[in-house]
């Protein structure tokens, strides 16, 4: 730069910089919903399902496996215990949950500007969870490593449409089973400043997550503030296992949020019908949420569900089909009636690659989840092959969808500018709007600009190398990782975290289970 000539602000450089970044929407901590939730069941129908769920809880009951302390707690609250089977008098669970579970809660991030709120009219978008494999265009399908894990934390950090860093964004199979949670939790803390999830695969690992959060947020902060939202799956049908109950207890005791999720492959894990599945989901969620409220009244808890079906021809899970969408809409309404936050949805698909099947199926679940009023949308970005694979290109494609959800839920602008009467008067019949003052003032943010779609002429597309969506997404994630800069982390805190991890890792031998 010469620095000699005085220049007006603007010109080419500024606009190029502003428009070429893949970041197309401003960073928000959640989406505030301005359109109604889509309802498919009337009050009578919802009451019927609630009645049936209570019948299930009273007659059949829920099994709490290998968890004697949980049984005692439930018994003291009025449930009837028969071996490991817990039967709840009609209405008990609803009453206990509604008495103390918050309808919304703040989940603090280490950067206060990223603290989010889960519940109410808000939607928080979260990357996919749990896959043992990753896939990208260059390397194909392979077991995930801690390097992949860090990459997805970084990509999520850089994706403005995702409000949350997630949890097991992929499983770092290269690390010992009993120690990998340290590196996962640390990666969320170090490489991102968005809120995150803790480990649930063993109560000790949940406690380690809490201990690390204590270091990050300062001793004493957690007791009154929630900094983690963690995933507790029901072992449907009608069972909770000791691992999940143990982890749920650790989090609830420490005032940390849990997502109690009946995770349903309908046909195998619930009846084949929508109403039957909803009944079971409600009963399981009520029982699990009740448990957290008994451990610590007021501990944040989310009514979760993962709705899919199985192929009756092979048993394989299927996604993006209409019946699970109906389940999702119904479950969201049931959660609203309980006045607790709701988790579901995501970019779910069964496809092996980010192809047309993946796109259709994912779009179906994302749209459904957005319209249904999901508050915590786990699995928003990256999901492939029924959750076995985290895809780099798929992640980029899904974040484009995530950005669009934000625009959709924002609803219709009815301000004077939104009404656009000036533009209509100015242009009048027969002309075009491109030059109108209103258009000049609004064009840049008027329409969502996709980060991966190509709408150019055939010839230009051909000149650009005939790239398809996946190829374009491949370029984007590489550019993002190349330009990643870590959010600053206090050095003393970082050192304390590393020292804690080292000490804990040294205290036990590597284990492969």
């Amino acid at each position: 730069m010469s620095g000699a000539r005085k220049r007006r602000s603007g010109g080419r450089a500024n606009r190029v910089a502003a428009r070429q970044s893949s970041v197309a929407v401003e960073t928000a901590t959640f989406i505030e919903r301005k359109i109604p939730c889509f309802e498919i069941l009337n009050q009578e129908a919802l009451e019927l399902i609630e009645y049936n769920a209570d019948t299930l809880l009273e007659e059949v009951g829920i099994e709490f496996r290998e968890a004697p302390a949980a049984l005692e707690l439930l018994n003291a609250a009025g449930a009837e215990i028969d071996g490991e089977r817990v039967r709840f008098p009609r209405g008990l669970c609803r009453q206990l949950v509604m008495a103390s579970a918050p309808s919304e809660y703040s989940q603090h991030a280490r950067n206060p500007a990223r603290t989010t709120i889960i519940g109410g009219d808000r939607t928080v978008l979260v990357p996919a969870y749990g896959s043992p494999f990753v896939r990208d265009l260059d390397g194909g399908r392979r077991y995930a490593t801690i390097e992949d894990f860090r990459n997805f934390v970084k990509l999520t950090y850089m994706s403005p449409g995702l409000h949350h860093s997630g949890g097991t964004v992929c499983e770092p199979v290269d690390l010992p089973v009993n120690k990998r949670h340290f590196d996962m939790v640390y990666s969320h803390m170090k490489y991102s400043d968005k809120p995150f999830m803790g480990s649930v695969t063993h109560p000790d690992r949940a406690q380690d997550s809490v201990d690390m959060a204590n270091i990050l947020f300062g001793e004493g902060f957690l007791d009154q503030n929630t900094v983690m939202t963690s995933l507790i799956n029901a072992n449907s049908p009608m069972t909770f296992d000791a691992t999940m109950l143990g982890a749920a207890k650790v989090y609830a005791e420490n005032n940390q949020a849990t997502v109690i999720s009946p995770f349903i492959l309908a046909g195998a894990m619930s009846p084949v019908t929508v109403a039957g599945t909803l009944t079971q989901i409600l009963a399981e969620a009520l029982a699990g949420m009740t448990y957290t409220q008994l451990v610590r009244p007021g501990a944040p808890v989310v009514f979760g569900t993962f709705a899919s079906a199985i192929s009756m021809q092979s048993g394989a899970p299927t996604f993006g089909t209409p019946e699970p969408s109906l389940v999702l809409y119904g479950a969201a309404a049931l959660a609203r009636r309980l006045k607790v936050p709701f988790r579901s949805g995501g970019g779910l698909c069964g496809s092996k690659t980010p192809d047309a099947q993946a796109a259709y199926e994912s779009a179906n679940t994302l749209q459904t989840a957005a319209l249904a009023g999901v508050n915590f949308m786990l699995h928003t970005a990256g999901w492939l092959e029924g959750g076995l694979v985290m895809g780099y290109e798929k992640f980029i494609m899904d974040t484009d969808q995530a950005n669009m959800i934000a625009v959709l839920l924002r609803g219709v602008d009815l301000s004077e500018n939104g009404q656009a009467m000036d533009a209509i008067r100015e242009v009048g019949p027969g002309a075009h709007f491109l030059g109108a003052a209103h258009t000049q003032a609004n064009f840049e943010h008027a329409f969502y600009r996709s980060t991966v779609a190509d709408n150019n002429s055939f010839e230009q597309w051909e000149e650009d190398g005939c790239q398809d969506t996946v190829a374009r997404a491949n370029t984007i994630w590489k550019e993002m990782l190349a330009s990643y800069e870590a959010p600053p982390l206090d050095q003393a805190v970082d050192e304390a975290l590393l020292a804690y991890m080292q000490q804990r890792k040294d205290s036990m031998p590597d284990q492969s289970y």
Partner: protein
Amino acid sequence: MTDETEEELDLNDLDDTELVEQMHDDLYDGLRDEVVEGTEILLARGWTADKVLNVALVGGMQIVGVDFRDGILFVPEVLLAASAMKGGMGILRPLLAETGAKPIGKMVIGTVKGDIHDIGKNLVGMMMEGAGFEVVDIGINNSVEEYLAALLEHEPDILGMSALLTTTMPYMKVVVDEMVNRNIRDQYIIMVGGAPLNEEFGTAVGADVYCRDAADAADQATRLMNEKHAANV
């Protein structure tokens, strides 16, 4: 078969060929009582247990297997067919043992410690029963000790292990290593499966075979048992 005869069909009225065909249909339709009855009739007519097994039952289940693979039959239907097969096998098994005929085989199957995923394992059990195997399902969350106890108690030919978590699948190696330690590894065919596994992983834990799905498991088990029998001749 015409509609009128359907109601009062008496299996005893059919000649051997017709009866076998009818049993194939009954297996296909999952009619357990009818398959049991057909088995008894053939035995009463002097068929050896071995012949009933191979011609009437295995033959029928092969058709079921093909149509399952091709997506014509659904899981709940195969479940019924496997149950009908199990009914017939219940009668034949003691007879086969008496005559010293090679039994199809016996498998102990369970999900490994720390893991509660069992839908896939249950499907494998179903297909194995459909292929004539005796299956002892020891459920989920099995420790080394539980696997070894089950091997001692049930004396199977095959040990099947299932795992769906990357955090639990390495436990398969713990089990295989312990079997090696105790010098019993070679007494069993070890089969493993579960969505996060692959061929390479199966080899790495020391299994004989990795199975990608339930039908594959039944095929591989049948093949390995045939090899075992051939080697023992």
